[in-house]
Structure formats: C-alpha cells, structure tokens
C-alpha cells in the first residue's frame, strides 16, 4: 500500500494538539480499536484500492448507479402467532410501502419441532410465526403473488425443509420455482458459532445445505439459497472485525463445498448473498461493509477463479443492532436505530431492516414497526444521502478504517486451525465471541463506556411503553391447525416419503431436495421430517465455552 506524505503543516498541528486538553475518554471504536485524533491524506490507501462503484474491487459499492438508480429494499422482518396473523401483518407492511417480505419463524420452527411437541410448550408463535407444514406456508402467503414479491426467510437448520414447503405452496398457486425471487438464510455454520438453533451434527447439516444450494443453482435461478450472516455473530457479542472475518470465512467454506461437488463457481456465486449487523459505532460499521466487499471480490476472483464479474459482488442485507437497544428510556432506541440505519446506507447495503424501539422489551407493536419503517423513508427521501454514490469514499478516516479492518489476523488463524468447519468444532470463534462480549460488558459495567439511559443520564424512565402481547391462545390454535391436517391427510404418502428420505439421507451422494419436496406434497410436518433425518444423522449437543 502506498502511503502519502502528511499534508503541509501537519507537524505544527501535532504540536498544537499536544498542548490542547483532551477529554477523559478512551477514544476507541465499539470493538475496542484505537482511533487517532486526526486522519489525513497520509492515511489514504492508493486510489486503486478505493476504485469506482460497480467496478473491482467494489469498495465504493456493487453497482455503477447505486441509490441514484434504485433505493435499497426496505424489508422489515415480521412474524408471530399462526400463519394467519403473520399474513395479516405482511399485507399491512405491503400496504405501507414496504417493498419486500421477510419471515421470522418461531423457535420451534427454527429447531425442527412441531407445535404440538412437548419441547414447543410456551414457544409457539412467540418470537415468530409457527410453520409446521405446507398448509401453514400456503396460509402465510395467501393473497400475495409469489411471482411478484421478493420473500426472505430467516431459517437455517431446517431451511431445506421450509424451502420445499415454499416451492410447493408456490407451485400450487401457479408460480413455478424458476420464477420465485428471494432469499433463504440457510447459513448453518453461524448457527453453531452464534445463533445456536440447530437440528443435526455439523457434517450432515453441511451436506443438507450443499444439496439445497446445488438444487437451487439449477432450478431456482432468481433465488438466493444462502444468506451468509454476520448479524447473529455480532449480536452474540463479537467485534466488527470478528463479524467480518467469521462471516466471510463461512462464505468461502460454502464456495469450497460447492466447488468440491463439481459446480462451476460462476454458476452459483452470483446467487450468494450476505447479511450484516449495523451497530452503533457509525464509521466502524461503514468501514466494515466496504472492507467486506473488497475482500470478497478479491478472493472470488483470485483464489476461487471466478470469471463472471457478478460472482465478485458482495450484495448484502443489513439489520440494525438489536443488542444496542436498551430497555431503559426505550424511545431513545429510535435515535440509535436511525444512526445505525444510516451507517448501513452509507455502507452501500442492498436492503435494510430497522428495529423497532420497543424490542428490548417484547416483539414490536404495529406502531413501533411503522416508526422503524418511517426512519428508513426519512433517510431515503429527506436527508439527501442517496443523492450521490458512496458519499464517504475518500474520507481519510473511513478509508483508513476500511484498510485496518481488512488487515485483521483472523483469516490466517482460522486457516491454521484447518478451516472454518474445524475451527467451529474446536469452538474457536465461539470462544473469541464470548471473550469480546465479556470485555464489552465489563467496560459498560465499570462505566468506562457510557450507554445513555443505562449507566448514564438515567433520569426520565418513568413512562410505560405499550407492548405487543401475543395471545397465549394462539399456541392452541396452531396445535389444532396441525392436528386437523394430520387427521385429514392420507398417511400412505407420508410414510412413503419419510422412508425414501431416510434411505436417501444414508447415501451421501444423493440430493435430498426431491425427497423433501415429496414430503412437503404429502403434508408431512417439519418435526416428522427432522426426526426422520435424526434417526439417520443424530442430533447436536454443544460443549459451551464461556
């Protein structure tokens, strides 16, 4: 990297600064990285590393026109109760100008338990929508044209099963798989690292994901079969550099697996997408997104030999940081979310979810969700930040931070451990995250880092915040829905599809997707499919590190 000379007068400034008083503060990023008093052209990378939007290495954005061409997709994550309640919420969001749908599933659905399993008690429809089978998926999207709207589904361990329900639901509404546009998260490595919703041991889970990616690459050209996610890694307490490195390493691992299966990198890499957190340290976040784009482009081109420029593009969704929201003085969270969302936009995100101010207390109310969406609309239409491409490009500070975050040593360390799958099995990223989160908490507890309303400026927390109450009767409603389908379905095809699935699961060379589609068509439930696979593969138990 070519570093320039400091500007004229820099020495004099340094002298003047030295004799000026300095605030009693740590001057570090949220991730603990030191920040200098001043950045100058001496900190600026050479122009080639910065480049131009829509051109390698894409530091300034993946498209030549960015938001001058089209604004980011405003995509609010939603889901609670049964498919009926969430379908209503989806239509409400579409009516209020939202441009894509994003499905939150409840915990039993994420873990592969049916709503009537004893493990699901008290959790059905609580943190997302309960989807047990094809019939629920059809209700979820009733009255919504799946050929028109782009749908994101945040589900991982049982992603292939949910995708099968979605494809069959669309097929029965007259929309073939090749017209479906959207994303399924399906990033299984980050489950073991951070989100911790799993069904199977790591190796068969990786195989199931590989089967799905391979099937999608030939059958669903408009679909993103995996959204490689740093969001949950950051929520679990990682630093920005850890979020970046662990996420990219997960991504490279999926690329390597697809290559091992004989796929051409240019056949699937353009369909890989990413999902990052937007934390409260504004410039550190912007630098993170810019560094991520540059590293991905370089590795795809140089290490994995991708020739199609579309394969080099890191497109990503951003969500503001749930972990930054405070239960104290919750209205302040609107401000936090606005700043975080602005970082996502100035970092060049393709889509954005803004959290609602009441989410440190419960799932959001409709009013709180509307304010969160309005926050994005204010950024888009009032602030003027979308008038020019990458307005911070060339900022001495942002470019220097981008270089710093790119240069972190995590990549080499993971390689040393034998790659990401091995590193996860050895709990390396898990331990790094636990250490980072503990350190940050200590800074907050000791008052070295101020959080407004929590450890400083604490007066003024008297007002009651209206909260969304999930009706406990919805759990029984979902159990009744599930049992009604079980009672009226034909058990022959259910048994046949599960037997065929088990046989295929035992044979690693077979692709499981056609079997999962058969199971979906037979109205087999998610829990039945997961249990069938567990009889072949077993389940997973973590050895926790803290």
């Amino acid at each position: 990297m070519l570093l320039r000379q400091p500007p004229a007068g820099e020495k004099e400034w340094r002298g003047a600064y030295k004799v000026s008083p300095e605030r009693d503060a740590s001057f570090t990023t949220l991730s603990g990285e030191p920040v200098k008093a001043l950045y100058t052209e001496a900190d600026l990378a050479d122009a080639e590393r910065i480049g131009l939007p829509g051109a390698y290495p894409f530091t300034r954005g993946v498209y030549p026109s960015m938001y001058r061409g089209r604004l980011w997709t405003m995509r609010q994550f939603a889901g609670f109760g049964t498919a009926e309640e969430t379908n209503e919420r989806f239509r409400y969001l579409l009516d209020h100008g939202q441009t894509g749908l994003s499905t939150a599933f409840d915990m039993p659905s994420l873990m592969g338990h049916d709503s009537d399993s004893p493990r699901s008690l008290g959790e059905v429809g609580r943190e997302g929508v309960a989807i047990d089978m094809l019939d629920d998926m059809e209700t979820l999207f009733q009255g919504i044209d799946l050929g028109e709207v782009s749908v994101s589904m945040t589900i991982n361990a049982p992603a292939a099963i949910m995708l099968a329900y979605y494809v069959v639901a669309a097929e029965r509404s007259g929309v073939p798989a090749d017209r479906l546009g959207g994303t399924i998260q399906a990033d299984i490595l980050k489950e073991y690292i951070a989100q911790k919703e799993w069904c199977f041991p790591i190796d068969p889970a990786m195989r199931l994901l590989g089967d799905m990616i391979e099937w999608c690459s030939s059958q669903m050209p408009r679909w993103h079969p995996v959204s490689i996610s740093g969001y949950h890694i950051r929520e679990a307490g990682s630093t920005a550099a850890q979020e970046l490195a662990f996420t990219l390493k997960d991504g490279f691992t999926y690329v390597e697996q697809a290559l091992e299966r004989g796929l051409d990198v240019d056949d699937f890499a353009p369909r890989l997408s990413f999902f990052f957190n937007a934390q409260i340290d504004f410039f550190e976040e912007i630098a993170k997104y810019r560094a991520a784009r540059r590293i991905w482009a370089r590795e795809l081109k140089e290490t994995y030999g991708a020739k199609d420029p579309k394969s080099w593009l890191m497109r990503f969704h951003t969500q503001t940081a749930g972990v930054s929201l405070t239960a104290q003085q919750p209205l302040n969270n609107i401000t936090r979310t606005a700043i975080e969302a602005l970082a996502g936009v100035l970092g060049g995100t393709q889509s954005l979810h803004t959290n609602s101010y009441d989410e440190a207390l419960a799932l959001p109310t409709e009013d709180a969700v509307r304010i969160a969406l309005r926050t994005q609309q204010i950024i888009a239409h009032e602030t003027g930040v979308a008038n020019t491409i990458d307005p911070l490009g060339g900022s001495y500070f942002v470019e220097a931070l981008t270089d710093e975050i790119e240069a972190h040593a995590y990549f080499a360390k993971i390689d040393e451990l034998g790659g990401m799958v091995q590193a996860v099995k050895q709990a390396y990223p898990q331990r790094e995250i636990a250490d980072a989160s503990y350190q940050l908490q200590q800074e907050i507890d000791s008052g070295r880092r101020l959080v407004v309303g929590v450890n400083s400026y604490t007066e003024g927390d008297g007002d009651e915040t209206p909260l969304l109450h999930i009706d406990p009767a919805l759990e029984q409603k979902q159990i009744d829905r599930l049992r009604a389908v079980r009672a009226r379905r034909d058990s022959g095809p259910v048994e046949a599809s599960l037997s065929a699935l088990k046989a295929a699961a035992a044979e690693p060379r077979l692709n499981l997707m056609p079997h999962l589609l058969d199971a979906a068509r037979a109205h087999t439930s998610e829990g039945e499919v997961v249990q069938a696979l567990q009889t072949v593969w077993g389940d997973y138990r973590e050895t926790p590190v803290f």
Partner: protein
Amino acid sequence: MGAEITAASSRSTSATSATARRIRIVVAKPGLDGHDRGAKIIARALRDAGMEVIYTGLHQTPEQIVETLIQEDADAVGLSILSGAHMTLVPRIIDLLKGQGVDNVLITVGGTIPQDDIAALERLGVAKVYTPGTTTQEIIDFIESAVIPRA
C-alpha cells in the same frame, strides 16, 4: 444429564468463610432460544466473583434443569430466557422443584421480561427478575446477599 460442569475459579469471595462452602449456582437456558450472550457473561462474572458456576448449555427442558439443580446441590439458579416463553417455563420449573421437595434454591430470572410478568413471576416465588441493562455486579451482590451459605 447433559450439563457441562466447569471448574470454578480458585478465588473465594468475602461472603464465604473458612467453614462455609462457596456459593454453587446453576446458570440455565430453558426453552429453545439460542441467545446465550447474557447467560455466558453472567456465568463468567459469577465465576470471577468466586462462585462455583455450572452452566447447563442451551435448549434445556424444565425437567433437565431441575435434575441439574438437585444433582449439583445448587444454592441458586439463574434462568435466562429471551424467547417470550418465561410464563410457561418458569412456573413449570417451580412446580417441578416443589414436587421434588426442593425449597432451598434461590430462583432468579433474566431476559426480555415485560413489567407485568415480573410481578407475576415474583408472586410465584422468583426472588429477582433482571431485565436488559443490569450490571453483572448488581447480580453478584444480590446472589451473595440472598443465598444462605450452607456448611
């Protein structure tokens, strides 16, 4: 039993004397949510404060947690729940403990718990409910003051 038993720090606290044993606390994650940042931070802070900490790991059923409490002869339990299922899972754990005749375990709960539910949980016998923003020191101080040291 699936609990991961972790060696406690050798430091002792001011609350323990030469005759009293160190406080034994189980940090447990009932239910299906995978949000373990808080539970792990608290487990580590309690360990650093000189307590013997047993962290159950994720996705525990009420039955598994009660079994761990009995097997570990715990003085206290910290239940971490961020799935909204606290009004189902906590009463179930309390009932199971009563059914086993266990009445000397201090029960604390942490997570995203709305105000109304805090009062309801305290009526059921939860000693303290912690919501986001609590410092680890507050929790340490409470456990140290509320647990009656056993010989």
